[in-house]
């Protein structure tokens, strides 16, 4: 029990460090809020009449539809930024300092991811605030807000795990940075910015089954309509699946790294 408490303190301390690091390094903070906010503004301003298209979901405004996409984009980038920071830690030898301490190596990774989750929650609050500012009403009220924040934070942790595994395997920030374009491909082939039924094939089918779409819809639902258990379960399953995959890959990467010795 005492060991568990000590490891929990380490996770919290490393999470706090991760948040401070993001706040102190503008190149890590920018992708979290600046890029998604700018993209949200551009797309909302430029494609706002998309809501008039036949087959577009019933929404209060295009901004209300877009908020979930902006949040998911933010957490993808937050996960990637966290992984870049982890790779920088490996490059400069800081992880050796952590691994030489009597704590679980997995706790080190979990500490980094917990920071990413908090940043994800912050991103959710940020975009909800933008929504409120521009007149969006969260249809499911305060319960919806809390659920959105939790789901976004959990998504950040899950996506962060995948990115962290690449950082742990490669140990190079440049490799993790190379994931940015791939993230945008995955993002645009989801329902983050457009409904799947209005996309051309095969993009529409890809978006329909893209796990990211499940998460987006889980976040979007309480903003534009009512909770549906099936959709929310799909969102939770997607988060849990991606998270489990991320943690498994991270564990495998750590073992591979230990074997290689670099």
């Amino acid at each position, binding site marked *: 029990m005492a060991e568990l408490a000590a490891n929990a303190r380490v996770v919290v*301390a490393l999470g706090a460090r991760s948040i*401070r*690091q993001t706040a102190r390094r503008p190149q890590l903070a920018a992708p979290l809020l600046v890029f998604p906010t700018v993209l949200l503004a551009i797309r909302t301003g430029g494609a706002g009449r998309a809501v008039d298209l036949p087959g577009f979901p019933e929404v209060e405004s295009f901004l209300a539809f877009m908020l979930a996409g902006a949040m998911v984009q933010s957490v993808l980038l937050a996960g990637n930024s966290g992984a870049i920071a982890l790779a920088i830690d490996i490059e400069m*030898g800081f992880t050796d*300092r952590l691994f030489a*301490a009597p*704590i679980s190596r997995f706790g080190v990774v979990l500490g980094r991811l917990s920071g990413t989750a908090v940043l994800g929650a912050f991103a959710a609050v940020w975009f909800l605030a933008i929504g409120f500012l521009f007149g969006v009403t969260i249809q499911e009220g305060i319960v919806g807000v809390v659920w959105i924040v939790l789901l976004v934070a959990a998504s950040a942790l899950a996506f962060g795990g995948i990115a962290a595994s690449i950082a742990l395997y490669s140990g190079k920030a440049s490799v993790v940075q190379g994931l940015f374009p791939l993230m945008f491909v995955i993002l645009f082939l989801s329902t983050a910015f457009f409904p799947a039924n209005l996309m051309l094939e095969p993009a529409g089918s890809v978006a329909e089954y893209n796990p990211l779409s499940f998460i987006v819809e889980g976040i979007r639902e309480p903003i534009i309509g009512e909770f549906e258990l099936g959709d929310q379960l799909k969102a939770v399953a997607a988060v849990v699946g991606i998270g489990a995959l991320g943690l498994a890959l991270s564990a495998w990467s750590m073992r591979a790294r*230990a074997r*290689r*010795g670099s």
Partner: protein
Amino acid sequence: MLRGSLPGDASHRAWRVRDGADEAGGYRARVAAISTQNLAREFEGGIVAVGGVDLEVAEGEIYGFLGPNGAGKTTTVRMLTTLLAPTGGRAVVAGHDVAENPGAVRRKIGVALQEAALDPLMTGRELIHLQATLHGMPKARGHELGDALLHRVGLAQAADRRVGTYSGGMRRRLDLAAALVPEPSVLFLDEPTTGLDPVSRQSIWEEVTKLNDEGTTVFLTTQYLEEADQLADRVGIITDGRMVAEGTPAKLKSQVGKPHLEISLAGQDGTSADCDEVLARFGTLLPAKDGLALVELEGGAADVGPVVRALDEAGLAVASLELVEPTLDDVFVAETGRHLEGGDKPAEPEAVEA
């Protein structure tokens, strides 16, 4: 618990009786802080970084691990500090096997790795407090100890500045303070003064000596001969992943030769038949170098006076002379035929102006 015998050159100060000690004639068990048997590490592609190292470092000892870049020093330290799994052999640190019980080893060691791996965005105080948390200290205790350590290494004033603003010497001192957070029984310092100016280097040396006086075993890797010479009770020399020599600095140096005298004669470039005749009486003549006559003194430093008098009696005026002691580099050369990188700094000569 490991039991070993006192090494042959037992001038080091700290083989301690731990258990089973029997002053009345029973057996004496001596405890090694670090012990390795045939420790090896091979990397992918068949690259052998460490090819079977046997070490025994006594509690309370400063052990200097000397070798050129790429010799296997850092790989050895990484194995001893549980950061890298050995691919062969065995290592026991602070009483625990590094492969079988790495957690127990980590609880007892302090580690300051090469290049002072510090986060430039953190403040010194944040780093020390994080280190205390990593070692499971309660917050209040961690803060108290952290602040005391920052004071000890002279960083109390700079504790709330970001590490990125620190000089190289300050970073090393912070790294040392962080390594001391767990109050280690064994401290690993991997090239702690590389790249530092002489003043910063001296300050690290003083702190290491102080720590050792307080009972901490220190395993120090270095490529600086002077550092090993000044600090280490015993020195192990490694090259190409293998130990080539081990012993006290004095003993190692005495094995490779006697001190030699470098003499510059007034109004004369190089040596002369008269000079050689005089010098040959005191030892073996060495080839002249840079206009200096060289002789290896059979009687060591005690022969300097008689040599000067003999030259004077032969009508040869001495402009200057230097007594040059063998260095650890000479030991390295004798063992490997190569000079140590960074080991070009000779031991301080005893210069006499005539």
